[in-house]
């Protein structure tokens, strides 16, 4: 299984992390899209397990989740997709899932299945560390990293707590809000990243709202990784040959590389 830490230790470049909802627009599309993203410069791919009530997501991921559920995507289907992909791509795969589907499957069963399917980490947007103790222990026992999120609303005490508990990397939410492509990034972004940098040892990856190579370059000046989700899914919707999504990822990669 690929370790998340290796991405940051060995590549030496700003990590580009893509999010895709599994099964949007179809399961076959996900199986084609992820290798395409990896070939075009992504270093980690987040596989979104669709949930009926995605309260931290904006319009794009609400829609992709809804359609994926209509396509019959379940956590077991996602595990199966991950298993197929991990044999094919050599970038680490991370699951993004709301807590309830994990709880329903059982924490131990779920984490064991993640490890068996080549999934390196977990991001659970409705599970702050205050509630995550049990999943931390179980995921660690299976060698799966539980990645926590931090938001610009965090107090210093919160930053210390989350930095102490997150494994693999720290997911910094770029703005006060839900996921979704934005025309501009939050003014206080650099200050926020600096505040976290002062206490965290992990790599810092910034996501939510990033939708252009220019924004990615701005983030890369202060962070170790850039996470892009909704924009990729919008391009998948516009062009089901997936060429637009590949072109976009290539452009972001090129912009990051030339800015280093």
């Amino acid at each position: 299984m690929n370790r998340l830490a290796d991405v940051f230790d060995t590549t030496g470049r700003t990590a580009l992390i893509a999010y895709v909802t599994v099964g949007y627009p179809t399961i076959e599309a996900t199986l084609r899209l992820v290798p395409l993203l990896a070939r075009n410069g992504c270093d980690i791919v987040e596989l979104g397990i669709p949930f009926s009530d995605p309260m931290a997501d904006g319009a794009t991921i609400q829609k992709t989740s809804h359609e994926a559920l209509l396509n019959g995507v379940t956590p077991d289907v996602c595990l199966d997709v991950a298993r197929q992909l991990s044999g094919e791509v050599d970038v680490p795969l991370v699951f993004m899932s709301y807590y309830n589907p994990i709880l329903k499957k059982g924490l131990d069963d779920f984490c064991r299945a993640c490890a068996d399917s080549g999934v390196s980490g977990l991001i659970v947007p409705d599970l702050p560390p205050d509630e995550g103790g049990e999943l931390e222990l179980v995921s660690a026992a299976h060698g799966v990293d539980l990645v926590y999120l931090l938001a610009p609303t965090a107090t210093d005490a919160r930053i210390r707590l989350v930095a102490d508990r997150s494994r693999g990397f720290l997911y910094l939410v770029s703005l006060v809000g839900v996921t979704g492509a934005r025309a501009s990034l939050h003014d206080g972004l650099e200050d926020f990243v600096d505040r976290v940098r002062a206490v965290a040892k992990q790599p810092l990856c910034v996501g939510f709202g990033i939708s252009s190579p220019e924004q990615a370059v701005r983030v890369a000046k202060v962070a170790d990784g850039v996470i892009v989700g909704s924009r990729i899914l919008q391009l998948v919707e516009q062009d089901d040959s997936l060429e637009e999504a590949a072109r976009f990822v290539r452009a972001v990669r090129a912009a990051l590389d030339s800015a280093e």
Partner: protein
Amino acid sequence: MQTMTLPDRRGYFGVHGGRFVPETLVPALDELAAAYAEAMADERFRAELETLSRDYVGRETPLTFAERLTEHCGGAQVYLKREDLAHTGAHKINNALGQALLAQRMGKRRIVAETGAGQHGVATAAVCAKLGLECIVYMGEEDIRRQALNVFRMKLMGAEVRPVASGARTLKDAINEAIRDWVSNVETTHYLLGSVVGPAPYPEMVRDFQLVIGRETRRQVLERLGRLPDYVVACVGGGSNAIGMFYPFIDDEEVKLVGVEAGGKGLATGQHAAPLAAGTVGVLHGARSYLLQDEHGQILGTHSVSAGLDYPGVGPEHCYLKDIGRATYVAVDDIEALEGFKLLCRTEGITPALESAHAVAHTGALARTCSREVVIVVNVSGRGDKDMDIVVDALGGAL
């Protein structure tokens, strides 16, 4: 009894409750919990809440002996707690007033709320008008259709009603959207959640603002009868009117507490909203509780003739009361609820909300099985004016 000290420090009632929210909201929940504790310790805050509860809401609400309903059932004596007579027509105003005063104290002048039946939306719109706060109410499109009168009332009182088109377009989806708004505007906005659900400190705070119902009831029954009731009955959507009614009786172990959920088209059909009667434990909207979910942990659609009960989750404290056996929960289906509605209209000249009609229906059935010495108090959580279109449709020419 130990119940009185719950929730614990982490917001748990037994294994239920907690705070399963995006990290963005954690500081806001900490701030809210601190502000709430401070406000409740402040005599001036409590005095202001009490004055407005009396002069604006019209408390205390009466306890009415339902003489003809009692005769009709031919069993237990039935008393009605009249939250239908509270300003804006339901118990929801008790909580809306408390939270709006708290928001004002916290300097948050933008209020967002969700609503199902529209009663919580109307109550929130009213207190925001009264206190001069900006008010945005999220409401599922299906509920906007079936509770149109309340939409108009909210708009008249200056609220903006935002339709929600996702999911089944009912209460659950309105809560999702209100949470998304709060996540995006948390620095300026208070989320005025309308029931004892959601992340800590909401279940505790909303309960505390609602327990005036049970406290008055307990005193009224004692004054009137010199004894406690044998049963206290209330409908359960998220569970706020029921917990408000139950809580002051929890230590009175001889008083049986009965919550009535929405049985919809019948529990066997799967088309209902009865997570305590037929659900399993999971996490939704920030708390661990009984839920209606499928085998993959996806939240199921619900059905009830009453928009205010049409919700797949339920307050964590009710889950705890069920687990320890202190309260029992039953389901009343759509048809029975409509019968309860008609029954209270005919025998007492009181038109209950369809939500409350569930509790009335169960009370009628229970009363029939009891002897004359038994006393049942049922909470009439709201009035039914808002439901006339639905009732006319359902009963057709049957009147």
